[in-house]
């Protein structure tokens, strides 16, 4: 069970309270997690990565186990703690005022 923490606005958009928990088959990669997330919450398609190219939206970052995975290849495996659900994958928006 993979745990995902989304930004406020995406939780509101998908009507999610708290964390998301998803079954993701091994190997647990960023691409696999995002595929599973969009499959369960299709209203999020395009909000995290471009629907055509799959490229991460520029003002979002991916963090896992205190490491920055934002610029890792989509097929890079996430840490075992993410796959095991002991640590969440954080999808974080750039800080902004106003």
């Amino acid at each position, binding site marked *: 069970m993979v745990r995902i923490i989304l930004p406020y*606005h995406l939780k509101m958009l998908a009507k999610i309270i708290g964390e998301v928990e998803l079954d993701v088959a091994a190997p647990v990669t960023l691409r696999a997690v995002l595929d599973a997330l969009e499959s*369960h919450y299709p209203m999020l398609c395009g909000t995290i990565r471009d629907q055509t190219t799959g490229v991460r*939206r520029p003002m979002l970052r991916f963090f896992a186990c205190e490491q920055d995975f934002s610029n890792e290849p989509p097929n890079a495996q996430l840490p075992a703690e993410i796959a095991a659900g002991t640590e969440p994958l954080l999808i974080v928006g750039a800080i902004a005022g106003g």
Partner: protein
Amino acid sequence: MSKVRVLVGTRKGAFLLTSDGQRQKWSVEGPHFAGWEIYHLKGSPVDPQRLYASQSSSWFGQIIQRSDDGGKTWFQPGTPAGEPMTTPEGFPKGESNKFVYDTSPETGKPLTTHQWYDGTQHPWEFKRVWHLEPSLADPDTVYAGVEDAALFRSTDGGKSWHELAGMRGHGTGPQWAPGAGGMGLHTILIDPKNPKRLFIAISSAGTFRTEDGGQTWQPINRGLRSQYIPDPDAEVGHCVHRIALHGSRPDVLFMQKHWDVMRSDDGGNSWCEVSGDLPSDFGFPIEVHAHEPETVYVVPITSDSLHYPPEGKLRVYRSRTGGNDWEPLMNGLPQENCYVNVLRDATCVDSLDPCGVYFGTTGGQVYVSADGGDHWNAIVRDLPAVVSVEVQVID
């Protein structure tokens, strides 16, 4: 008695303002989509309960929302409330947020780039939907004007979108360049007498017309003169801020350009300046009275560098002669220390008699005049910056 519903898009959500036909007492409801930029929302002329909204964010991109009950509830058209979230094949239904430029050999060629700020060529990149224009005949058909400038159409209620690529690829595309606010296709006018005839406007490319429902396009900018481009009389490159027409005379177009208020009497084939005695002919919106085709409204601001009203006095200007002779309308509007702006999609008129005129400001006020502009009242004063205002009259 008729009911009036004003649809307000702001930097932080959408608001619905409702009143009876007197337009004196108002209810304010919102924010919908709190925290998101709502560039535009508009109702279908055929089915007023059908509303479309463009919800966007620099973080999360573009979302299309639809309501079938006049704004009480909203859903993404590809994922209607209560329906399965995936297709029978198991694919997600996020199609309604998908705006992909047409690159197909059949309809998307030639592929083009456009001019970047520094004069180099730059690929088209989708950023957001600036304007939604529902069909005059079919509630499921709606046009979307987007940044970077292109025209999309949905014929299934906003579920899927397809580019009318002939507009972007007709030939002058490589000469188009963004203004400071981006290269947005912001105005879509449908000729009520001939639905295959559309007029669109782009900042900062100019105005274009199709006679065949969007397959082929031509620039219609003859007579425009812009000192801020290398060739002031160029075929394209003019920063048109908005165009407007009256449904009874679709060959007569009015334009608020970056500088200059313009008029065409031949469907855009040629333009002449009608700025006349305006205190400034810089501004963003332009609107035509619902029942008087020669009565036009603009909201001048000081200059391209000073985006606020001259002398800090908020004044709408009305011409009853189709331009040139303008009168200031100020009764009920702030006449000191006012430094707001009125954006291009933030004015509208209703179809009641007397005609109601509405506008929203970057200071969060929405004003109404229930008598064609003679007297104004603020419906609300403290919304987020207003981006768009549309009105519906519901019998």
